[in-house]
């Protein structure tokens, strides 16, 4: 029996309080953001087994078919079905974003915790390096690296999913690392001499254990909230790179790439080719922003009402 359940046994009233505390009311932003994200994941999964038409084959329609019963969202210049391409695109945009953010979160947090807990020379060096790196325009950095389909770092992975995607993911995670690092470093640094940290040290925990098991879990809220906001940013940069045609192949149904392909259509009145991928991006980034807001409302006591 956990201590909390024991409280419920002794006093039913305290038990009721416990329940209220443990299940905070889900905010609207959490519900909407979560629902949209689940919808996108579902679409991405469905696209693995079924799309209305083949997304990569041109000439299914005549080219620039307006939205109709046969092609719900119309066809693009080459006559590929927009809906099918959008569905497969969910795989690219969602997959790239989630992978890049996860990598950045893990690496950035680890270095940040070490720097923040250790302090001293390591801390100074890391902070200075981060400051220099942050003065570097992020999108430019991404463009610079992705433009050159450089030597694959992990050849096995590269062969499995294609060199372009690996580059995009690596670069996007690299761009995010400094932010996670600073955040984790600040959190740990401000808490490392608190009493519970002292207590953990006193009973003989090694430093890494104090830092990662005792201090880090208390910072999970702000980190997760930032991760969600950062995911929105990464999703936007993914689309930007795709729009510039950097990194991925020319026929890749990535949403930014699709917007670029529809650019000529906008000038001649075929708005749907660029329009719908933009809405898809809006849904994805909007969901991440909403989730980020909801998480920080939940975990930041200053924002809790």
């Amino acid at each position: 029996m956990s201590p909390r359940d024991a409280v419920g046994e002794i006093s039913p009233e305290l038990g009721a309080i416990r329940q209220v505390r443990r299940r905070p009311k889900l905010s609207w932003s959490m519900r909407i953001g979560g629902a949209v994200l689940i919808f996108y994941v579902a679409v991405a999964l469905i696209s693995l087994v079924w799309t209305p038409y083949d997304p990569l084959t041109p000439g299914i329609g005549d080219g620039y078919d307006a939205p109709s019963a046969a092609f719900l969202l119309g066809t693009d210049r080459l006559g590929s079905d927009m809906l099918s391409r959008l569905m497969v695109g969910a795989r690219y945009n969602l997959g790239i974003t989630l992978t890049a953010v996860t990598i950045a979160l893990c690496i950035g947090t680890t270095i940040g915790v070490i720097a923040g807990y250790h302090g001293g020379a390591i801390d100074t060096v890391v902070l200075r390096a981060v400051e220099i790196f942050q003065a570097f325009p992020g999108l430019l950095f991404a463009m610079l690296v992705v433009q050159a389909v450089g030597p694959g770092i992990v050849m096995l992975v590269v062969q499995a999913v294609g060199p372009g995607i690996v580059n995009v993911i690596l670069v996007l995670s690299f761009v995010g690392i400094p932010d996670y690092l600073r955040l984790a470093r600040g959190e740990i640094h401000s808490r490392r001499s608190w009493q519970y940290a002292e207590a953990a040290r006193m009973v003989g925990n090694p430093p890494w254990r104090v830092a990662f098991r005792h201090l880090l879990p208390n910072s999970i809220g702000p980190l997760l909230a930032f991760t969600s906001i950062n995911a929105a940013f990464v999703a936007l940069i993914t689309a930007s790179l795709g729009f510039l045609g950097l990194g991925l192949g020319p026929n890749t149904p990535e949403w930014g790439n699709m917007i670029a392909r529809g650019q000529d259509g906008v000038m001649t009145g075929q708005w749907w080719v660029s329009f719908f991928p933009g809405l898809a991006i809006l849904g994805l980034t909007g969901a991440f922003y909403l989730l980020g807001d909801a998480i920080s409302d939940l975990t930041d006591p200053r924002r809790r009402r």
Partner: protein
Amino acid sequence: MRARMILRRLLWVFPVAFGVVTLTFFMARVFNGDPTELYAPPEATDALRAQIRAQLGLADPLPVQYFHYLAELLRFNLGTSFTTGQSVASDLSDRLPATLELGLVGLTLGIVVGIPLGVIAAVNRERWPDFLVRGATLSGMALPQFWVGLVLIGIFFVNLHLLPGPVGRLPIGVALPPRVTGFLLIDTLLAGEPALWWLSVRQLALPALTLGFSTAAPIARVTRSAMVEAMQSDYIRTAIAMGHGRRVVWFRYSLRNALLPVVTLIGGIAGHIFAGAVLLESIFAWPGLGQYALQAIERSDFAALQGFVIYASLLYVLAFLLVDILYMFIDPRTRA
């Protein structure tokens, strides 16, 4: 004390610039490889290739190239662009006014629209104006800028024929006025040509609107949350209890205290905008710094790329310095 801190921040510019230059120098060369192929004719012999490589300054070993570049940099020489054949410094200053003009107008739009929207949302918290503003700011931040630009082009140029198409700062075939400041909105008037001024305003309208939209969104959002926090504080309760009118409480007390995070945000945004909005400029064929950087990357134009990155990072550091100085005027605590 404050002056010393600012001085220290100013001096910090140098290590940052040095680090950024080093990073760019090696990254560009490692990732992009040898650009000789881009500049040599396909039928070139090996001897000709070697000659072109030497002309581009790429024949020496990397460390030699690096120290050569640093030595020139100390003499404020940014080198020569491969593509334009001009000095990078003059290339940058040619394109700077276009970026600054668009950036200033867009940023002003963003501030003028964003802050009032944030205030309106905050004083109507959890009522319909708040939900409207929050929805708008969410979409402003979640939509890619280039898509917003395309949609605006589709509406105002293609469908309504109200504004001109995306062909740069002036319609095709119209000659630029003599260059004085480089800002077309000013140069056209100095040249005494109001018709030309109107043309340039119309060309500027869509890209500036796009920029304004995506700038106003985060500004409104931060203004709102800072206002909400300020209005829940004790001194506001006191001010209301003392019988101050709503307007005084909102603008003199809440907004003034809420401005700090907004100023920080605007500083960061300005640093990004004035470094050239790459995608925006490429959609509107705007001949600014962003396009220059994009072209430098695509053509492996090392000197141009490095020059641009130095400029952008200095701008970033200076933007934050400016924010610090502004703080001294807004926040009396820092004046102590």
